[in-house]
């Protein structure tokens, strides 16, 4: 007997759906469940139901509120810079045309580097005393002393310093996506605008950017979500320090769980973090992506 197409489609999707249910949905369910308990960090230790107490503690803690703001600031800085630099590079590659193709490939290399390696590398460049950046700026006469800027030790700027590897790693992604989008703009349109006397800025702001809007929106959402989850690069550079000045949400949850041994509180923070991300994701997906729609 031949099963219907609908059943057949379901049959094809079932293994993947089961996998995601068991290894993503169920752990999430556990996370939410744990957030209502006070849990001893020792395996097999006591577990007491405390209702919403962990949530009250999260909102009452300065660390949680601080990490929320820092995550937001970090995400905005990363995405803005990446977008600006990525667009600049994409325009550069487009205006140079086919002859720059090989450089486009070379430009892609950071995408393959592990974030942990990127973080390490930039830590090595920015670290006090033997960091190269401070030394070069000093030798160029810009800084009076190589340690004048404490890239990773000054709490006022550390959040921006730890963002550098992230920006370095994924500007290539922005550039690639925007470049592909730029290739889709009909040449005649640009030609016509040029004949009408449009200059470069007008061309960029009145024609190119509006036409790229859907591509830009998707790229910003994808990267925004990644940046808001950043963990590896920050952990290896500063471990959230100094004085928690670079402690973003992922790091705070990790430390609450592992270092401070409070799984209940960490789960409550994780749940809130997850809800915030899902809210953003939901708005983004429903307004921009509309996947699976008929063409």
């Amino acid at each position, binding site marked *: 007997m031949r099963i219907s197409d609908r059943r*057949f*489609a379901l049959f*094809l*999707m079932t293994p*993947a*759906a089961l996998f*995601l249910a068991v*290894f*993503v949905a*169920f*752990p*999430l369910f*556990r*996370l939410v469940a744990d957030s209502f308990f006070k849990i001893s960090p020792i395996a097999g230790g006591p577990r007491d139901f405390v209702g919403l107490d962990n949530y009250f503690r999260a909102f009452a803690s300065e660390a949680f509120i601080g990490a929320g703001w820092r995550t937001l600031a970090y995400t905005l800085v990363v995405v803005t810079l990446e977008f600006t630099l990525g667009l600049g*590079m994409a*325009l*550069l590659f*487009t*205006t*140079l*045309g*086919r002859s720059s193709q090989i*450089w486009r490939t070379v*430009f892609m*290399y950071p995408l*393959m*580097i*592990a974030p942990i*390696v990127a973080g390490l590398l930039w830590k*090595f*460049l920015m670290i006090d005393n*033997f960091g190269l950046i401070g030394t070069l700026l000093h030798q160029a006469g810009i800084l009076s002393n*190589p340690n004048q800027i404490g890239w990773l030790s000054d709490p006022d700027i550390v959040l921006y310093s730890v963002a550098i590897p992230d920006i*370095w790693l994924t500007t290539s992604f922005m550039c690639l*996506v925007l470049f*592909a*989008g730029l*290739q*889709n*703009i*009909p*040449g005649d349109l640009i030609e016509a605008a040029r004949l009408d006397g449009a200059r470069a800025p007008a061309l960029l702001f009145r024609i190119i950017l509006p036409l790229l809007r*859907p591509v830009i929106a*998707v*790229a910003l959402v*994808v990267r925004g*979500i990644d940046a808001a*989850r950043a*963990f590896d690069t920050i952990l*290896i550079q500063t471990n959230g320090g100094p004085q928690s000045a670079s402690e973003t949400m*992922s790091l705070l*949850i*990790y430390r609450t769980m592992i270092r401070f041994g409070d799984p209940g509180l960490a789960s409550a923070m*994780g749940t809130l973090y*997850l809800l915030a991300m*899902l809210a953003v994701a939901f708005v983004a*997906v429903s307004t921009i992506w509309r*996947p*699976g729609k008929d*063409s």
Partner: protein
Amino acid sequence: MRLAERTTHDAGAPAGVPAEPAVHTATRTTHRRRGVNREGLEAGRRSTRALLWVLLAAAMVLYGFPFLYLLFTSFKTPIDTIAVPPTILPREWTLENYTNALGRSGVLASFVNSVQTAIISTVLSLALAVPAAYGITRYKTLSGRIFIMAALVTRMVPPVAIGIPLASMMAGAGLADTPIALSIAHTTISLPLSIWLMSSFFEAVPRDLEEAATVDGCSRLGALWRVVIPVVSGGIAVTAIFAFLASWNEFLFALLMTAIRSQTTPVVIANFQTQFGLDWGSMTALAAVYSIPVILLTLLLQRKIVAGMTLGAVKG
């Protein structure tokens, strides 16, 4: 905006072929012979182009330098790596850092673990994603639409939120500190991406292809296996690269779920920092050894990777 459906301005140039969606065919459209009637955004004037090349050169130097510096540092003597003030080039080229790093116990084992975990995760991810993506794109059912939405939403989940419950689940199943457990965890990251990529590749396969096969007496599963899969093999390769890289470079799950036996190299690199003080020389050497194979892979397969990278985002 759909790249694959774009036709090119150049007469005779092929439109997007199914197996390699059209990112590079699209780049062909702006191409005009040097000096002759450049079209669109490509700059024509000589002086402008010269200026742009200078800009590009500056950008490439700034962008490429950090990794070169890592390489140079890895060839310095261990003492020179933390010399004040630092030098760009090694005063004396030596492989000492490499022998130190690779000779340390657990380092070679971590490479084996990384490769093993990445391969298991890639195979698992493809085995689940290929049929699922086919089911979603070919039959366009409501359940398919819901499923791809759900898969996309999983991509938004912060790893730290599921990492800890997942680790305790694995421990409960007796899989603590095994490559299997870690590769399952990595698949939670790569599966949504793989489904998304494979859906785009299946979308480009003409429907007539398997209709003809089913008319010839093939079952639907047979048509998928014998007719459709060979056509999208290029797309499967791209998806495999991404799944492999996702696992190869992953750190947080590896940190949470492995102890000694199944530790992957990123965790070992991070551990150099605490366990052995600040051993920068060995760290840079190990980081170089770990990154170079994937960088070479990228340069080799760049067309495919660019296609995969842009597909998800540009296709609206």
